[in-house]
C-alpha cells in the first residue's frame, strides 16, 4: 500500500479534487501565453539591439555624436548615466566598446553616443573616421551602475567630468533640465584645452535658463592668455566653488588618473566614500604600471593560451586576454570590459593571470578558478575552458 491508495482518506481531499475539476474547466487558458515571455523581455531588456546611425554631429575637433535609431521596434529605457556596448567589425576583428548615452532618457526616439578620439584607439578611430549615416551596428541593451538613485543620493549633486567623461553627465543634466526635476547640480568639467570642451555651449545655455544647474570649466593645458580657470579639479577649487560640502553626492567620470586624484582630494575634505561614485574606465592604459604587476614580466612578453578542446594561440601578456582572443577570431560575451559585470566569466584551468584591483570577482568564482578575461592578463602559459 502507498499513500496513493489511501489519499482520499485525508480530510478535505474530495473537496479539493472537485475544486480542481471546476478550475480545469474555467481556469486560465495558458495557450495564449506563447511567446509572451520574450515580448515582455524585449520591452525592457532585449538581449541585443540593432541600431542605425541616423545622423553624425560634430562636437569638437576630436569628438562626434552618433545618433542611433532602432532598426526596428523600440529602444528600451535606460537610466541617465548608463551605456551600451557597441559591437563593431574592423578588418575582420569583431570587438565591442562601451559608450554612455549622452542624450536624455526622456528622448525615446534615439540614443546619442558621443565618441572622443583617444590617440591610437582601435574602435574610437573607426567610429570617428569611418562611420556614416545609414551604418548599422549591433549593441547590448543599456547597462551599468553609474546613475542617480533618488533613494539615497539626495538632491545636491556634484559632477566631476574629465574629457569624454562628460557624456553620462550630459544625459543626467539634460534629463534634470528637460523634466524640471528637483535636483541641484554643479558640474566641474576638466578639459585639456578650450577647444576640447564637448557640449560647452549647451551646458552654458542650460545653466543660464535653470538656476539649479551650474558649472565650472577647468582647463589643464591653457593656451597663452587664457582667462578662465586652469589646472586640475582640486580640493581648493571645490571648496571655493561649493562652500559647504555636507550632504552632497559626488559623481566622477573620466580618466583613471582623475579618479585617483579627485577621490583623494574629496576624502581630504571629509567626504565619506559612500558619497562618491565613479564610472568604470576599462582596462588601464599601462598594465605594467599597476600595483602588483609582476616585475619580471616585460611589456612585450608573450605566452600561449590554449582553449580546452580547441586551438592554442600566442598572446601578449600586457593585453587583456579578451582582446587577444578577439584578435584571433574568438569572441566571448562581453559588456563592461572593465572587470565588473562578470559577463565574460571564464574558467582558468592552468597557469596564471594578473587581474588588477577593481576586477569584481565573486568570492566563490575566485575559489573555483574563474577569471574575467576583459581585465585578465595572462602572465604564464594558460589553459582556459570556454563554456
Amino acid at each position, binding site marked *: *500500500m*502507498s*499513500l496513493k491508495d*489511501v*489519499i482520499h*482518506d*485525508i*480530510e*478535505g*481531499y474530495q473537496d*479539493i*479534487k472537485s*475544486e*480542481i475539476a471546476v*478550475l*480545469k*474547466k474555467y*481556469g*486560465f487558458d*495558458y*495557450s495564449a*501565453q*506563447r*511567446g*509572451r*515571455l520574450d515580448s*515582455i*523581455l524585449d*520591452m*525592457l*531588456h532585449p538581449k541585443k539591439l540593432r541600431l542605425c546611425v541616423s545622423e553624425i554631429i560634430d562636437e569638437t575637433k576630436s569628438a562626434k555624436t552618433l545618433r542611433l535609431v532602432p532598426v526596428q521596434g*523600440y529602444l*528600451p*529605457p535606460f*537610466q541617465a548615466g548608463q551605456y551600451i556596448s557597441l559591437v563593431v567589425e574592423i578588418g575582420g576583428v569583431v570587438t565591442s566598446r562601451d559608450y554612455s548615452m549622452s542624450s536624455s*532618457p526622456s528622448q*525615446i526616439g534615439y540614443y546619442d553616443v558621443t565618441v572622443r578620439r583617444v590617440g591610437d584607439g582601435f574602435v574610437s578611430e573607426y567610429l570617428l573616421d569611418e562611420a556614416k549615416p545609414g551604418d548599422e551596428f549591433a549593441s547590448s541593451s543599456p547597462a551599468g*551602475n553609474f546613475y542617480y*538613485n*533618488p*533613494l*539615497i543620493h539626495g538632491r545636491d549633486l556634484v559632477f566631476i567630468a574629465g574629457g569624454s567623461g562628460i557624456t553620462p553627465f550630459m544625459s543626467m543634466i539634460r534629463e534634470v533640465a528637460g523634466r524640471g526635476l528637483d535636483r541641484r547640480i554643479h558640474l566641474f568639467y576638466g578639459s585639456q584645452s578650450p577647444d576640447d570642451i564637448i557640449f560647452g555651449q549647451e551646458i552654458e545655455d542650460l545653466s543660464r535658463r535653470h538656476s539649479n544647474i551650474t558649472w565650472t570649466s577647468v582647463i589643464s593645458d591653457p593656451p597663452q592668455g587664457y582667462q578662465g580657470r586652469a589646472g586640475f579639479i582640486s580640493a581648493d577649487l571645490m571648496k571655493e566653488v561649493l562652500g559647504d560640502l555636507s550632504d552632497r553626492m559626488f559623481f566622477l567620470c573620466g580618466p583613471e588618473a582623475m579618479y585617483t586624484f579627485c577621490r583623494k582630494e574629496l576624502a581630504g575634505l571629509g567626504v565619506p*566614500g*559612500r558619497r562618491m561614485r565613479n564610472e568604470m574606465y576599462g582596462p588601464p592604459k599601462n598594465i605594467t604600471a599597476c600595483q602588483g604587476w609582476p616585475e619580471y614580466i616585460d611589456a612585450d612578453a608573450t605566452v600561449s593560451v590554449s582553449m580546452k578542446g580547441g586551438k592554442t594561440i600566442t598572446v601578449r601578456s600586457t593585453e587583456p586576454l579578451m582582446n587577444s582572443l578577439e584578435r584571433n577570431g574568438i569572441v566571448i*560575451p562581453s559588456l563592461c570590459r572593465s572587470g*565588473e559585470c*562578470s*559577463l565574460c*566569466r571564464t*574558467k582558468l584551468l592552468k597557469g596564471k593571470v594578473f587581474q588588477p584591483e577593481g576586477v*569584481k*570577482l*565573486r*568570492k*566563490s*568564482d575566485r*575559489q*573555483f578558478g574563474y577569471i574575467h578575461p576583459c581585465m585578465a592578463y595572462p602572465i604564464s602559459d594558460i589553459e582556459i*575552458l570556454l*563554456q
Partner: protein
Amino acid sequence: MPEYDAVVIGAGNGGLTGALTLARAGRKVLLLERHNVPGGCATSFVRGRFEFEVALHQLSGMGSAERPGPLRAVLNDLGVMDKLEFVEMENLYRVVWPDTFDITLRAERNAIVETLQDRFPKEKENIPRFFDLVYGFSMEMVQGLFFKDPEISKEKYPLFFKYALTPTRKVLDEYFSDPLLKAVLSIYWSYAGVPPTWLSFGDFAIMLFAYIEFKPYHLKGGSQALSNALLDEFINNGGEVRFNCGAKKIATKGGRVTGVVTEQGDTVQTRYVLSNASMLQTYLDLMDPDQVPRETLEGFRSTSIGPSAFSIYMGFDCEPEELGIQETTNFITTTTDMDKAFARWKTMEQQGVALFTCYDVSDPDFSPPGTCQAAFVSLQYGDPWSLVPPHQYYDAKYRYAEGMMELAEKAFPGVRGHIEEMEIATPMTHLRYLGHLGGAIYGHDQYTKDTPYFMANRSPVQGLYFAGAWAMQGGFQPTLTSGRSAAKGILKSMAKK
C-alpha cells in the same frame, strides 16, 4: 551531430543537482544555461565592495553533521560537502512591528514556547499544545510519507490524515485567539508565498518543524558558492556546460524526445531532457504546439503563476550594531491581517510584511571588514509590473522602493544614511534572469490544491523530465532535492533500455 545521454536545460538548483546526479552516474550530459552564471535564483552579484546574495535567506533541512537533515544527506551524496562551509543561525527569526511589538524566537522548541508564553500569558496553555500538534503531525508525516510506510493508514497516522490539507488559519483559530500571536507564529507563510487562509497545515507545519529541528542555515560565499560547487563537481565528472546559451527547442518525434536546439542554432541529439525551465515555458515556447497533448496545457488551468519578489540589496559602510541590527532574520510587519498583506502582493501598494536579512550578524565575514549588507525583500506578483509602460519602469521602481525604505527605517532608524551601494530588483528583474513568466521564484502558486498530492507530474512526452520549483515546490531544499529525484527517474528509465 553531437550526442548526449541527457541534456539539462537551466542551471538553477534543480538543473544543477539533476545534471550532477546524471554525470556522477557516468552519463554524458550537456547543461545549457541562458545566463552567464550557474544558480538561477541561487546566485550573487557584485557592486562596489559588496557581493550581494540574491535569494538565500534561510536554508532549511541542513541539520548539523551530528544530526544531519535531509538536505545535508542530498549534498553529501552529491559529493559537494567538502567544498562548502555552512553557517548555523541561532535564532529562527525576529518579528518587529515598529512602535508596537518586537519579539525574537530562538531556533529551539522549548525556548520558543517559553518566549511566547512570556509575551502572551493569556495563551499560556495553548502554546505548548500547538507545538505538540506541529511536532506530532510532522513526525507522522516523516514516518508515513517520507519513509514511505507501506502500512500507511488513517488509523496509524491520525494527525496526518486530519490536518495535511486543513488550512493553517483554521488550525491557528482553533488554538489561539490573539491575532498578534497567530501572526508571529505563522510568519513563515511569506516563505511559502501563500497566506495562512490558503496554506495547507501540512506545508506549514513541516516547514516550521524543519527550521526548528534542523535550524536555519546560510553558507560562506552565499548561495553562489553552492551553485559553483555543484557545477564544479559536474565538470569534474565529465559534464559539459554552455553558458549564455539557452535551449530554444526540444525536438520530439512520435511523442519521444530526440534532441535539443540551442539559441545559437546548434542541434544536439539526446533521448532525455531534464528541464529546469518552467513547465509552462517548456510546453509553450520550447515545444511545437502539435507535440504537446491538449490535456497537458489544460492541466495548467487549475494553477496560477506564483509570486516573484521585490528586493532591495544594501551595502552599508558600517557594522550591523551601528545600525541597530541585532538579528539576521527580521520580519518587519505592520499588520496582523495576513490576507490583506497577501492581497497587496498583487498591487503596487505599500507592503504589509517584508523580510530584512543581515547576513553579517551570523557570519561576520560575509561583507568586507567594517561593512555589512542586508537584503530587504517582499514577495510580489509580476502582474502589476508587466502593466508598467517601459519608459515609466525606473520611476515606478524607485517609487515602490521608497515605500519599502520607509518601512525599513521604521525598524532601523537611520539605515538609509549608511548605504554605500544599493541595487533594486523587481519581479521584472527576476523574470529577466530566470526566464519564468511573472518572474515567479517558487513556480506556480502553492495553494493546498497545488500540493504534490494533486499533481500529475509525469510528462506525457517520453524522455522529458522536470526539476525545480515549477515541478514540485519552491525554495532551496525542495528544488535541490527535486533535481536529484528527477535524475534518478531518468537513470531508471535508461537502465530499462
